[in-house]
């Protein structure tokens, strides 16, 4: 199937038709393993239909189209619940970073299976002692001839349990300041010495993992970009992350979304209460202003101005919208927000969403970090006097760990 010569309008039609025919109607109640199979089958189909990697270079398996086609696909996709979450990290971050920095061999080896959903990727940056301050990480990759040996612990790794590959950031030189001694690696998650443990978060679920590295050997060609230039690679990847977090389309079934809360208010019989109406209107305004901002960023990107640090605005605003929604939900559902009948699935989902809300202000860089980025990179305000930027990593105190 080829799309060459199609107009955007035709392309949109093709997308719609394919999605209508191929999106699984419901994945409720499937076990994680079954869900993964559904996802892989769907992604393979999407790829084979020429609808994966829209703007990615054709040479490595992408479609080589423009942002206009991507936008058309995103618009259509927003009307469906796509089972593509296992590929989010790979498609949103690792893949684009490989395209930016990878060797031709790395691209040839990894991009096509990634796009077709055959190989799943995860991102291995955060550590218990290195959250906002990722550059202070302690996982160590030591040279062993041409190869590397990795030891250390990563945390908050989404999808590590089903990942085939990870983008690992590790310290390769502790004798230089923290930003200068890091390297990014491709790590085969099935290697000996890699242990993945689920990490239970405050919602009670375990969508994240801790990943332990115990003398894990990596070949020389596992390096992404340059040795000791891992920080630049990480910045590249985190730039992709912020856009993909802030720009993600709100699902219609989101329990904290405006649409869901209006429906809830109607069902509870309080939608005509002026206070509830006012709060819902305010929530709509916040949600819609953010989505219009995201559209504007996309249009500017399509016109040649990449969003850069402005992705931080979307990330920050997204968190604010969620916190507002938590308040609105309490107004709408009252005491039923916090205690509900066993068979009230919607109330249960709402509660889980409320419990997950703090993640919006933490994951992918805290609100404080986003504000620093906006203030410094966009507005050009001076950095804080940095006390650790020029000190060899070996001499720094990091996290809450006491050094001997």
């Amino acid at each position: 199937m080829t799309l060459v010569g199609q107009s955007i309008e035709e392309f949109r039609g093709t997308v719609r038709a394919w999605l209508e025919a191929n999106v699984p109607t419901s994945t409720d109640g499937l076990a994680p393993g079954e869900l993964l199979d559904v996802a892989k089958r769907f992604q393979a189909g999407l790829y084979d239909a020429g609808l994966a990697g829209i703007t990615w270079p054709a040479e490595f398996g992408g479609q080589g189209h423009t942002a206009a086609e991507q936008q058309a696909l995103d618009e259509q996709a927003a009307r469906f619940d796509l089972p593509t979450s296992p590929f989010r990290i790979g498609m949103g971050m690792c893949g684009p970073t490989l395209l930016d920095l990878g060797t031709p061999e790395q691209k040839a080896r990894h991009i096509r299976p990634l796009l077709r959903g055959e190989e799943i990727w995860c991102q291995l940056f955060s550590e218990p002692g290195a959250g906002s301050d990722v550059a202070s990480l302690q996982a160590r990759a030591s040279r062993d001839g041409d190869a590397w040996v990795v030891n250390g612990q990563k945390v908050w790794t989404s999808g590590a349990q089903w990942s085939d590959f990870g983008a690992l950031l590790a310290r390769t030189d502790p004798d230089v300041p923290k930003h200068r001694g890091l390297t990014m690696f491709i790590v085969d998650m099935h290697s000996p010495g890699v242990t993945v443990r689920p990490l239970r978060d405050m919602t009670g679920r375990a969508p994240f993992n801790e990943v332990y590295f115990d003398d894990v050997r990596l070949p020389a060609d596992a390096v992404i970009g340059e040795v000791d230039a891992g920080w630049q690679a990480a910045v590249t990847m985190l730039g992709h992350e912020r856009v993909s977090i802030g720009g993600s389309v709100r699902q219609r079934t989101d329990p904290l979304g405006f649409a869901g809360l209006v429906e809830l208010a109607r069902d509870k019989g309080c939608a005509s209460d002026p206070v509830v109406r006012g709060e819902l209107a305010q929530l709509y305004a916040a949600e819609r202003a953010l989505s219009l901002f995201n559209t504007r960023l996309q249009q500017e990107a399509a016109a040649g101005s990449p969003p850069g640090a402005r992705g931080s605005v979307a990330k920050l605003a997204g968190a604010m919208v969620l916190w507002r929604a938590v308040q609105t939900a309490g107004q709408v559902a009252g005491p039923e927000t916090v205690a509900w009948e066993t068979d009230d699935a919607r109330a249960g989902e709402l509660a889980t969403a409320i419990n997950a809300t703090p993640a919006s202000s933490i994951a992918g860089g805290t609100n404080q970090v986003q504000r620093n980025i906006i203030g410094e990179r966009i507005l050009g305000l001076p950095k804080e006097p940095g006390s650790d930027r020029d000190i060899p990593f070996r001499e720094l105190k990091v996290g809450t760990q006491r050094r001997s």
Partner: protein
Amino acid sequence: MQLVLDQQQQELRTAVRKFLADHSPPERVRAVMDGSDVTDGYDRELWRRLATELGLVGLVVPEQHGGSGAGHVERCVVAEELGRVLTPVPFLASAVLAVDTLLALDDVAAQAELLPQLASGDLVGAVAVAEPGGSWYTAATGTTASMRDGTWVLDGCKTHVVSGDVAEFVLVHARTPEGTGWFLASGDAPGLRRTPLRTLDPTRQLSRLDFAATPVRPLAGDAAAVLAAVTDRAVVALAAEQVGGMERVLEMTTEYAKVRVQFGRTIGSYQAVKHGCADMYSAVEQACSALRYAAWTADHDTAQLPLAAALAQVVVSPAYFQATADTVVLHGGIGYTWEHDAHLYYKRAKTSELLFGSGEQQRQRLADRLGI
């Protein structure tokens, strides 16, 4: 008015805090919560000791009924300490709601029979007011009490009953042919089905109670006045729990901010974190002031209690949730884990905020009492 604890009240606080530090540490709270230690959702052994060794359950029960005859200020001191450590005991249900309802009723027989057993911890009582789709504030409309074959029976459904699943008896607000009234139902009465609800807060159980021709005993008293009196006092006791929780999360956050290093400095040296802590402190101080005033009116100026209670709730409830949300966020990733205690406070705070009704209902209630 007196907004500062006196010597004796401070000593009470110290004693309770010490006792709970020894007997209700976080591991114990989690063991009860997970059901790994006990199966009925609360710490029965601790409850017995709080009642008998420390005499805290019958604090406001008159001495003639086996209590200490102390005041609401003292009871709030205890609630504050329990809220600080999230001790899973039926204090709010039994030592606050049930005790206050019995005290507000004119039913001397019921008082003489039940108050001593509540005070001793031998019985746990619960109070049922809210119904599905409503809130504590919108009060009962659908549950009806009627005479059948010479006995009173209850039909209908109550929800969000605090400790409703474990209580040995339930005091129920219901409609009768002549208006509203209060009725006493045994926890194991025929025709009473008790269903624990799913809850946001894993440390406080709430239940739905379905009554189908359940035999009950009518209780003497002005039903509406009792409901108002109990609600105001419960709101104040809950506010005390909330303030205790706020104090604890402020401590947790401040302590963490002093040891966690990012970018070469402890995070508490950054204004974003420091000012977050400062705002939390300001909120705690004001919440505590509103609470102290409300507790004082409950003892010394009951004419002002309705306004003071509504005020305390409007000040404290959103402030507690904000403080816990900030606590999780200021802790960063570790605060978001199940393993860290921050989320227990977050869930308790959200639950307390909405337990009796929405924030807007609380504001409208305050407006009513301000005569707006």
